[in-house]
């Protein structure tokens, strides 16, 4: 037992009375009136008890027995009136969940999935491992498969049971490969089912509706003012706020380069072409993407994609 706040569970001592000076806290019997002052004690107040005052402490103070009783009756009426109003006038707000689902907003952050390119049907993920680095609970593990045209993810596992749905992985993905779905149903009797591999993640992406957010969109939304973009971090001419990018640029980390495969200057490039500017060997490949993957067994083909 910790002795929190200094020895409060001493053994009983012989009777002492606390000094009345402490009474402003109303702890003792002598000062039961407390700072609220002697309110009406007619009616059925509990004057001898510490605190509590009397039932008659309705706001306007003493009213005499009948006044109090009337007020009590009114109070009962109003209280029960509110519940009655809810009983008859308001519909239940319950959503009959498994049968009916509410409308999930566009930005819903749910189960994660990997995507295919809309046009070519290829996997978007290039195995760049940015999501692995950013993930706070470190639940993503990616292995890159280098290839001529573009890179691929050789393995991609996601321990969904430890994911905190922070959407950082979505945000950093240069190719919009990882997205969140409008579903949250993770309940399973076997924890291993939540250890998602690449195939499972791709399948999930086909099964469920995607949320709005992708890396490009998120970075676009957070983009600093246009005036400051792309031209080094000059003070923005049109907006006062644009000036604030200057200190931000000063604090630009150098360590980014190692991770993104690009100089930190690219960070301030316009987010829309971010996918292109990001990895020297990756982005063009996404667009052309003609070469078959080097490890076909692990990659879904075009047919399964659509």
């Amino acid at each position: 037992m910790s002795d929190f706040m200094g020895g409060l569970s001493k053994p009983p001592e012989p009777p002492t009375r606390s000094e009345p000076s402490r009474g402003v806290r109303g702890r003792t019997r002598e000062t039961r009136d407390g700072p609220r002052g002697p309110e009406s004690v007619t009616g059925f107040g509990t004057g001898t008890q510490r605190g509590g005052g009397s039932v008659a402490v309705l706001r306007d103070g003493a009213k005499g027995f009948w006044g109090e009783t009337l007020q009590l009756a009114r109070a009962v009426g109003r209280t029960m009136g509110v519940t009655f109003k809810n009983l008859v006038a308001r519909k239940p707000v319950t959503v009959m969940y498994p049968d009916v689902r509410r409308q999930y907003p566009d930005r819903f952050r749910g189960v994660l999935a990997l995507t295919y390119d809309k046009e070519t049907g290829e996997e978007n993920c290039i195995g760049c491992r940015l999501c692995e680095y950013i993930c706070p609970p470190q639940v993503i593990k990616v292995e890159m498969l280098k290839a001529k045209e573009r890179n691929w993810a050789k393995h991609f596992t996601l321990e969904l049971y430890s994911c905190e749905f922070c959407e950082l992985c979505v945000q950093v993905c240069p190719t919009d490969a990882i997205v969140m779905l409008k579903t949250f149903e993770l309940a399973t009797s076997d924890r291993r089912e939540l250890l998602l591999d690449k195939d499972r993640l791709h399948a999930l992406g086909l099964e469920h509706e995607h949320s709005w957010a992708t890396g490009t969109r998120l970075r676009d939304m957070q983009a600093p003012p246009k005036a400051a973009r792309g031209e080094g971090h000059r003070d923005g001419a049109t907006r006062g706020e644009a000036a604030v990018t200057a200190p931000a640029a000063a604090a630009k980390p150098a360590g980014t380069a190692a991770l993104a495969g690009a100089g930190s200057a690219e960070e301030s490039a316009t987010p829309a072409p971010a996918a292109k500017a990001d990895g020297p060997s990756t982005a063009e490949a996404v667009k052309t993407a003609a070469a078959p993957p080097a490890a076909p067994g692990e990659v879904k083909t075009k047919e399964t994609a659509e």
Partner: protein
Amino acid sequence: MDTEARKVVEMGWGGNERLVMNMGPQHPSAHGVFRAILTLEGETVVAVDAVIGYLHRCHEKLGETLTYVQYPTIASKTDYVAAMTSELAYVLAVEHLGKFEVPKRAQYLRVIAAELQRIASHCLWLGTWCLDIGGALGGGATIFLYAIREREDVLDLFEALTGARLLYGFHQVGGTRYDVPAGWDKQVRETIDRIERRLDEYEAMLEDNAFFLVRTQGVGVISPELAQEVGISGPLIRGSGIDFDLRRWAPYSSYEDFDFRVPVETAGDCYARYRVRMVEFRESITIVRQALDGLPEGPISSRPGVKSVGQVRVPKGEGYARVEGARGEVGCCIVADGSPKPYRMKWRGASFSNLAILPHILPGCKIADVVAIMGSIDPVFGEVDR
């Protein structure tokens, strides 16, 4: 001046056999996992000892192992009932250290989020407190469900804004991560209008209700001196007659732009704290309205969107930022060493400091008052234990 807080509070022996009773760690009104060891004389509490730490998750250590980019998403887990608050405190501390500025729009969005969060948090407080004093099988449960209904509406707003209902990750260093979606402000206005109307109902249910009044008035009285010495904050200290609100006295995130009242009650009892929070509900609603009206155009972040884990670095130094959370002053102290991670991170949890008042006001109460007082303190044990 610090005499008041040092007094060991113990009741004189009334001549009855004493009984030591554990309230918690698993108890319906423990608000989490909190163990209060009550010494009883009949129904009267004569001494209280407290054990905390059941929910300890090494949050400060986590803060030291995660970078400035990652941690804001986890900061919300300290006080999971008002998740926006601790995120805001963290990013404010980092921005203070790195001297990053925040666009006006982001500041307003932060205010909107913080005030909506206060509404949501107070909704939960009202519900659980009434559940404590009112019983899970009675009127308390009714108010609880009404309050939760309203809280869910606010969470719907957050869900539309950020996609999550509990742990938002809305803030990032230099601004916010999400801009308002289309139609959001209309939705916000509808929701807060509705909540404002429903507040009248709660007040009709509670303030006219003699049973509620006798349970709260004169119970758990905290004197202004004691309040200052123990270092409680938020609605507790304002309920004790001390006008202390960081939004007013140390404005952050453009709070100086808004016109709002800081409710102060002098009685210091549970009822005063209740009144303070009920007024705060309405004040938060007016702040949200003002912020929505005055929401400037512009970027939401002074920094480019997060693209890599070490993107934010701050120079060596030490910074402290504090915000007025729903439960009081939430402070975050960061010692930076120039790397992308803090060298040391320390939380000042409002609930933790507020909980320290318990041994001073519990002795002399009835058992039933213990839960009423606990509820009026409104601790969140994620924030206490961290």
